């Protein structure tokens, strides 16, 4: 069965059973080429996808999915979803009413180039790195493209589809200077294959990782911190987004609960999510429930303006959905950002402190419920207004909400990175003081 046939089969069955059903199907295509020592080492090509169901019966919600598109598997999924719905004690669930949302193509011809050109970009990236005297080993250098098509339909009238995708040049390698070893990575994303340049990605890697060679221990203390986008962006998504999700607010897991309209960050801090951003890595015409995309200001000059909602959380908090419903075919309804960005400021002037280039171990060292974090970091010591030397083997700790309140300057340029659920763009963030543990 095709995805369209499976969708129609399920909607028809559900109507006959008197069930409310939302069907979300996603089909992925992926191509990746990895190069090593001047040769293509691994090529992967894939087509994969599945179909997921959200069933509401008597106000109770249940989920099921299948990657096997046979009538027997689809029947099983429908029955399991209904059985799962019946387990829910609490009524009040519903599927939003909707209409036709159209067919959207956000990708166009962006990935259309012959395979040979894609191989050449992977090989060129790896070759350029290998040629550098400080590069000890290239673990991986390569090209990957991903394309997805999402179909959304429900018994409540929602019907739409969109296609999106991106290409990426990526590298992971080890650099050496004497006894000092640093393993770094670089990923360069674009909606257009032709916009990727292996030379630029290689230079970015060499600059970013090379500056950390010869690092010294950092003395334990409290210092001014300059968080680069690669450090601040993931923290913002893992900690900040978690707190802003109305789902977590309703479940009593967010320290921002009850603080709408209050000051929760420095005046300098404005946080926006914009799924309509032209060319945005995570732009989308509508969310996973069919709510049309629009720009949302979450925090404005430090004041918490709104939480991020899907229709279910909005209904329970008596407000409107902000269009942040997320669901993969094998997941449950959640709340996810698209292109999440911190509005840039007037610039940062380095004085004294630590540039945090990257943080590691967020999933273990940061607690989104309390906001507390203690993270391994890589960085550079700044003195007299300039970078003095790289530092290593240290951890940076604090509380994310206190960090937001202590922001004292923001850089003037955004750097974008993809995340698990979307994309995040942030400038350099200066924080008055953070706690550092080292030697």
């Amino acid at each position, binding site marked *: 069965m095709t995805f369209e046939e499976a969708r129609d089969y399920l909607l028809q069955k559900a109507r006959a059973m008197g069930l409310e059903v939302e069907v979300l199907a996603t089909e992925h295509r992926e191509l990746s080429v990895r190069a090593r020592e001047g040769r293509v080492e691994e090529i992967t090509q894939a087509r994969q996808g599945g179909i997921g169901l959200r069933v509401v019966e008597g106000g109770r919600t249940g989920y099921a999915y299948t*990657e096997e598109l046979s009538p027997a598997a689809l029947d099983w999924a429908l029955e399991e979803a209904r059985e799962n719905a019946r387990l829910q004690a609490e009524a009040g669930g519903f599927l939003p009413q909707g209409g036709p949302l159209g067919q959207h193509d956000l990708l166009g011809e962006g990935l259309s180039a012959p395979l040979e050109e894609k191989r050449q970009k992977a090989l060129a990236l790896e070759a350029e790195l290998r040629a550098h005297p400080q590069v000890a080993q290239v673990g991986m250098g390569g090209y990957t493209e991903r394309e997805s098509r999402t179909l959304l339909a429900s018994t409540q009238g929602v019907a739409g589809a969109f296609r999106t995708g991106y290409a990426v040049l990526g590298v992971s390698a080890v650099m050496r200077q004497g006894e000092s070893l640093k*393993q770094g990575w670089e990923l360069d994303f674009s909606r257009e294959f032709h916009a990727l340049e292996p030379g630029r990605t290689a230079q970015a890697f060499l600059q970013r990782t090379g500056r950390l060679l010869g690092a010294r221990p950092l003395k*334990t203390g409290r210092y001014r911190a300059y968080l680069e986008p690669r450090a601040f962006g993931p923290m913002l998504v893992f900690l900040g987004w978690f707190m802003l999700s109305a789902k977590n607010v309703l479940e009593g897991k967010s320290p921002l609960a009850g603080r709408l309209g209050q000051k929760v960050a420095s005046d300098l801090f404005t946080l926006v999510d914009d799924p309509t951003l032209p060319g945005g890595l995570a732009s989308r015409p509508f969310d996973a429930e069919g709510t049309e995309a629009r720009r949302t200001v979450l925090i404005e000059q430090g004041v918490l303006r709104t939480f991020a909602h899907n229709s279910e959380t909005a209904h329970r908090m008596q407000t409107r959905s902000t269009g942040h419903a997320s669901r993969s075919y094998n997941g449950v309804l959640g709340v996810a950002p698209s292109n999440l960005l911190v509005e840039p400021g007037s610039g940062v002037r380095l004085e004294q402190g630590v540039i945090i280039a990257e943080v590691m171990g967020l999933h273990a060292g940061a607690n989104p419920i309390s906001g507390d974090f203690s993270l391994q970091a890589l960085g550079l010591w700044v003195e007299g207004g300039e970078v003095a030397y790289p530092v290593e083997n240290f951890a940076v700790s604090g509380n994310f909400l206190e960090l937001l309140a202590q922001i004292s300057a923001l850089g003037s340029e955004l750097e974008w990175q993809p995340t698990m659920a979307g994309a995040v763009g942030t400038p350099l963030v200066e924080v008055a003081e953070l706690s550092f543990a080292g030697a």
Partner: protein
Amino acid sequence: MLDEALVSEVLQKARAGGADFAELYVERWQRRALRMLSGEVKEATSGIDYGGGLRLFYGLEVVYAYTNDLSPEGLLELVETLVRLRGSAGRVDEQGRGGLDFRKAAAQGLHAPRVPFSAKDKRYRLERLREAEAGAWLAPEIKQVQTQLLEWEQEVLVANSEGVWAEDRRVRTRLVVTAIAQGEGGMQTGTAGPGLSVGLELFDRYPPAEVGRRAAQQALVNLRARPAPAGSMPVVIGNGFGGVLFHEALGHLLETTSVARKTSVLADRLGEEVASPVVTYIDDGTTPHGFGSSEFDDEGRPTERTVLIEKGVLKSYMVDRWGSLLTGYRPTGSGRRQDYTFAPTSRMRNTFIAPSTTPKEKLFEGVEFGLYAADMGGGQVRPGSGEYNFAVKEGYIIRHGRIEEPVRGAILVGKGPESIRRIVAVSDDLETGPGMCGSLSGSLPVEVGQPHLLISEIVVGGQA
């Protein structure tokens, strides 16, 4: 799961297209997840994952493709796609003619569930979650209890052009309880999450109320804990999930995935002393019902018990097929993947530090001021520099050899090879715990384990 003649045709076609080696992997999963929050089912979901991957070797070059379409047409198209991708049309291997003579191996049921997936209804599962939750309502400070039950049953077939035909069935069950306590210390959490390669008899081995109580106790400890101190100090690491230290600081550095590319600081070190002599480190895929156990790995090779480090000396790496081709080391049944969307790479299974005969109390005796990391969260490592970190979920100050007040928010950071040399004592109380490990070939169930052990000095990240 698939017709033998079709599998043979697919593999032979690949060989005829010039591949030295062809491997077909197919799987069908059934999964169920239930999440309950303060007495109410929040999410209930079920699913079928179904797909396959075909991997071809041309010397050291690999091409991989995967699909959900396992019909004869779908599979034959997959082979053609791969042969075309490689651009090797034209070269025909004469050996690729005729049928394959498979040596069929089926799982013996070493890790088979006693109470399988279909044996009990969902109400039964809900009742167990309610018991877990009830166990967690220990004190008025406990404000929230979340319980989750995760179950999966995976059928796997791996067949290759060397005649391997291995079928495996893997059943895993995990219960996770998270308790949130609120008080003057803000909001703090505690978790407990036992999991094994068993069915619902997990509840007999780990009574749900007891699991709930453990999560709540940890949340309450963290509520009265002060921020952890910062700086370098001696640390005693608790048994069981404490083994995640070695998983990060040592285990990942011994996978051929990084060893073969020499992006591991422990590459080319066989026979050398790489750890303190009190350290013996073992990766065992055969542990009965271990969370990371299976009868065959995802390359169809029987799993085995691999001694990685014996008394500080490096004895073996963890080797998959590709790693073996690149390095010449013998494969160790370590080829694993999350699912068909990943080609296998060398991965850990159930990895632990062997116990000694020293009682745990001895480890604390000499510590004037240090940290007792009683329970761990996860961590991360960069094999190329050895830099790793991992989080302490429950910690206490050690003062004059005694365990004193609790501290929270500590992480331990270091460089793997250095920390391993600084292990000065290991005790006699080995325990293991389940976890999910993420790497190149996806997220996999593993076990980590260790007895209590003492590290003479390590950086503790806390409040300066």
